[in-house]
Each structure stands twice: as C-alpha cells, then as structure tokens.
C-alpha cells in the first residue's frame, strides 16, 4: 500500500479530526454509463484516496448505485476509465474485481441465507486460501495452517463487530440490522483495499444506525480501510465522510468536504434544499 502511495506521487491531506489521508487509491476518469438510451452516469470524474471515507450522495435515481456497480465491476461503462493503484483497470468480471481487493455490500443484502454467520464470513476469505484441493480435503500441510489463520482473522472481525452471540446462527433467522452487520463482516474478512457500502443504513432504526456509524468509523480507524459509501441520511453522511461526491441525474454537481458541499448553491438546489424543507 505504501508503494502505491509513493507511485501516485501525491501527498494526502489531514482531516479536521487529525487523521492522515494518503494518495490516490482509485481514480474514475470521465465515466459514462448508458442502459440503451438512458444515461445513468454522464462523464463523471473523481478520486478516492487511501484511508478516507468517501461518500456518494444524491436524490433517488441519481446514479449512485450505478457508480458503485462500475467500481465493483458489475457494470461496465461505455466510456471513461478506472485507474486503480496507479494502473488503468482492464474490463473485468465482478469476481475478478473482488479478487483485486475490492469488497462490497449490497443495498438489498446479499448474504448466503442457508449458511451460518461464521460460514458466511469465511466465504469472504475464499481467495486468501491457497492450499490445493487435496491438502484442504485432508487438512494436510498448508491447508490446516491456512484454515487457522483465516479463522483467527474472522474471529477478530466477529469480535470487532460484536456478533459473537450469533456466530452459529443461520443468517435467514437474523433480524435486518444484524444481517447488514454480517454483510459488513464478510466484506471486511476479505481484508479489502477498498470497501464499498451501498446504503449501509437503509431501513435501520435510530439505534441500529448509530451502531453502524460507529462500526464504519471504527473499521476505518482500526484497519485504515478506504471506504466508499452511498447513503440517503444526510446527517449520517455529513458526520461520517471526509469528502462527498454529489450526483444528480447522472451528473456530478458537487465534490468536496461535507462543509463545502453543504454550502454549495447547486447542491442545495438539487438535493439538500428539497430534503431539508
């Protein structure tokens, strides 16, 4: 990670609360995404820096989720390029993108409902397992050591997100808020370079929201995880994020610190004005 920071040749900045933000981790250059005749994203550029919490906000249908899907490889933009760790990223399938260290959660929770919480989180570590099939089947050689390491990492995350009490529970039985937390745990288990959260607090009550907020901040503090999140709750976004991209009708209409964005004429007109009155 340090190498790529150096390679990007840029220094970061210091946040108001004193955290050091690094160089550019990912840069979106002139991204345009169309579905047939509908333009979902129109010529958008922005960057994501190492260690920061970057929010994408905007009214419904602004193209936020589409943008997240471009980053995670679920959608392929017709124009523009994604620069990741200093290199232009070729067209990749979602699972290939995941293997480059980009983990995500989904707006409408995509967990393995039939598996236990522990098993779900373990799937996050699949591509950290290198032992071959026979070693794994026989628990022999590299396999058993790897399994131990992976379990240790997973237990750390389970502790961290305070879900010890449900580790053996099948996910299907969990309430909504806990499912969201398990999904976050699975994404974290991959030890991602960039963590993408698609509306991590959608549909939560106040208490659950506060918990989730705390976890996102703690994760960033503890593991230094670069986080990109989409969120509707303005209060949450302004509290959490270091920098905010504002989208409206597929276009970028604002980009900057929460304070900058809050005072931006166009942003107020498009979004905040409507939301707050």
């Amino acid at each position: 990670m340090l190498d790529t920071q150096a390679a990007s040749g840029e220094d970061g900045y210091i946040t108001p609360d004193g955290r050091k933000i690094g160089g550019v981790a990912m840069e979106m250059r002139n991204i345009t995404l169309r579905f047939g005749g509908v333009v979902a994203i129109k010529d958008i550029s922005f960057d994501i820096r190492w260690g920061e919490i970057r929010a994408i906000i905007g009214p419904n249908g602004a193209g936020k989720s589409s943008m997240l899907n471009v980053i995670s490889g679920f959608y392929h933009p017709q124009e523009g390029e994604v620069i990741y760790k200093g290199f232009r990223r070729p067209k990749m399938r979602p699972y290939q993108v995941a293997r480059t260290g980009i983990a995500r959660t989904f707006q409408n929770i995509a967990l393995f409902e039939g598996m236990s919480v522990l098993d779900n989180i373990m799937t996050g570590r699949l591509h950290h397992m290198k032992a071959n099939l026979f070693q794994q089947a026989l628990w022999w050689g590299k396999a058993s050591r790897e399994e131990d390491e992976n379990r240790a990492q997973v237990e750390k995350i389970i502790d961290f997100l305070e879900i010890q009490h449900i580790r053996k529970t099948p996910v299907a039985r969990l309430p909504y808020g806990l499912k969201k937390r398990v999904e976050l745990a699975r994404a974290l288990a991959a030890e991602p370079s960039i963590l993408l959260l698609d509306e991590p607090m959608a549909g939560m009550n106040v208490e659950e929201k506060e918990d989730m907020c705390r976890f996102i901040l703690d994760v960033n503090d503890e593991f230094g995880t670069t986080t990109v999140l989409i969120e509707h709750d303005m209060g949450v976004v302004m509290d959490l994020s270091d920098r905010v991209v504002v989208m409206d009708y597929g276009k970028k209409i604002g980009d900057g610190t929460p304070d900058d964005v809050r005072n931006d004429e166009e942003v107020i007109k498009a979004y905040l004005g409507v939301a707050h009155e």
Partner: protein
Amino acid sequence: MPDTLLFAMEATLNGLTAGVMYALVALGFVLIFKASGIFNFAQGVMALFAALTLVGLQSGQIPFSHLINAAFGTRVHHFGWNMPTFLAIPATVLVMIGLAVLVERFILKHLVNQEPIILFMATIGLAYFLEGVGDIMWGAEVKALDVGLPKGMSDTVDTLTYNWFGYGFYIDRLELWAAGIAAILVASLTVFSQYTKQGRALRAVADDHQAALSVGISLRFIWVLTWSIAGIVALVAGIMWGSKSGVQFSLSLIALKALPVLILGGFTSIPGAIVGGLIIGVGEKLFDFFMSPIIGGATENWFAYMLALVFLLFRPQGLFGERIIERV
C-alpha cells in the same frame, strides 16, 4: 429362529443394497440441485451416456461410426484394440468433464438469472439431446459392461449366515461393492463440500449468485465443477447399473426411481439421498415380502411412489431437506 423372520431379514439386507443403487442415482440430482437450484432432468441420461462411453472406449468402438459410414460409404466400426478398464474410466471421466464444459458454455451461460422452471426445461432438452447423441455415437444395441467387479451370490455372506442361522442369505456381490463404493463417494463428497474452498464456494453459489460474485467466486468455474462432479457420479451409477443389467436405453429410466428417494431424503441433502435410498430399498422389499401374498405381486413397481406421496403430504421438505420457513 422362525423362517419368516429369516426371510424378512434377507429381504431387508437385499433392500439395503438395492437402496444404495437408488441412492447413487439420487446423489447426482442432489449435487446439481444444491449447487445451482436446477433439477437436472438429464441425470439419468448422463448415467446412460457415461456407461455407453465407457463400454465404447473399452471395446475400441469408433464413435459416430454409423454416421461416418453413411456419409462416406466406409465400413468402419472398431479401432481394433481394447482399452483396459483402468484407462477407460479416467478417459470417460474426461469426457464427462468435457460435457460439463459444453453444458456451461451452451446452456447455463445463456440462462443466468432465469427462473428455475426455465432451467428445468433446458435440462429436459439436454436429456433428449444426450440420448440421441449417445445413440449416434455408440449405437443403440444392448451392451454388456464389465469393469471387473465381482458378480453373483456372495459365498462369504452365504456361509456366514448359514453358520449363524442355519439358512444362507442370498446377497449379490455386485451390490455389496456398490455399497462400498457409494460410501467412499459420499464420504469424499461430504469432505469436499464442507472442508474445501471449492466446496464452500459451491455452497455459496447455490445460495446467492450476486453475493458469490462479490466475494470473488467465478460462477462459470463453479458450474463446470458441479456438472463435472455430477457427471462423475453419473458414471459411477452408470457402471453399477450397467454391470447389473446391461447398458441400454432403460438405464436412463432409473432416474425415475430416484424421484421418490429425493422426496424422502430432501433435494438438498447428501446424507438424505443415502438414507432415502435405503428406506425406499428396504421398504420396497419388505412391503413386497409381507403384502404380495395378500394383494398380489409386483408391488415394487409402485410402492416407492406411494411412499413418496405420503411424504409429500406430511413432510414436503423431506427427512433432511432445509426447513421451509414461511415469514409473514
């Protein structure tokens, strides 16, 4: 010991071994259903196709020879050599893996995110296609399959039981072997799906495609893997049934016997397939033994289906299937 009890015990033993043969077929269904939510109608035909390929390779038959002869006026039919079994089986495994790749490339890839019923229809198509290809490739005549498994009455069991009870049980040695092989198969499949990365990925794909992609699992690879394993299980079932009653079209119909097994055991459980098979096997034999004198013979033809019907009424998810939870 009264004779009736002895006969019933013999029937039970025979039922157990016959049940293993049913379970072997059911296993293939469970594997694909678990991994992709598809009920693979072609499983029985895959067993037939695998057995045909094995016999064809063993006897050095030229594939598509009828077609070649018709097209070019030649009269070829055999290469003139016999492939030893220990080579022919791995070669057939390769053919089944090739088949899995083709199924993924030409069917599954184009049906991502479709309703299960559409995928089911596709497998019906595949079944008919494979049946035809099997015929054209290897010919339609009944073939004997011999991979060196022992057949006929087991003398050991006969002597042993004669010494114990004064009455020798008749057990087919082939079915004893089938039981052993099924045990090894199930053990390795369980270890594979529970303890390996690929197994975990396979279960993940079965559960949620999108989530699987997001943790870096390649759906296409997993599908090829699943269908390859199902192909190998089909080969094992094909070998066992083929050795027992010859390789012929009716082999593909054993798939029908797997249906009640699946309904009993649950479509998603490997142990369920085994236990379901055993229950059907034993139930069939015992029912026949006790009821035939009263209601007439041939109960084996319908008993399994009736039992399945009863299960559908009272426990539709099967003995080991995932519980159906209705959330309101």
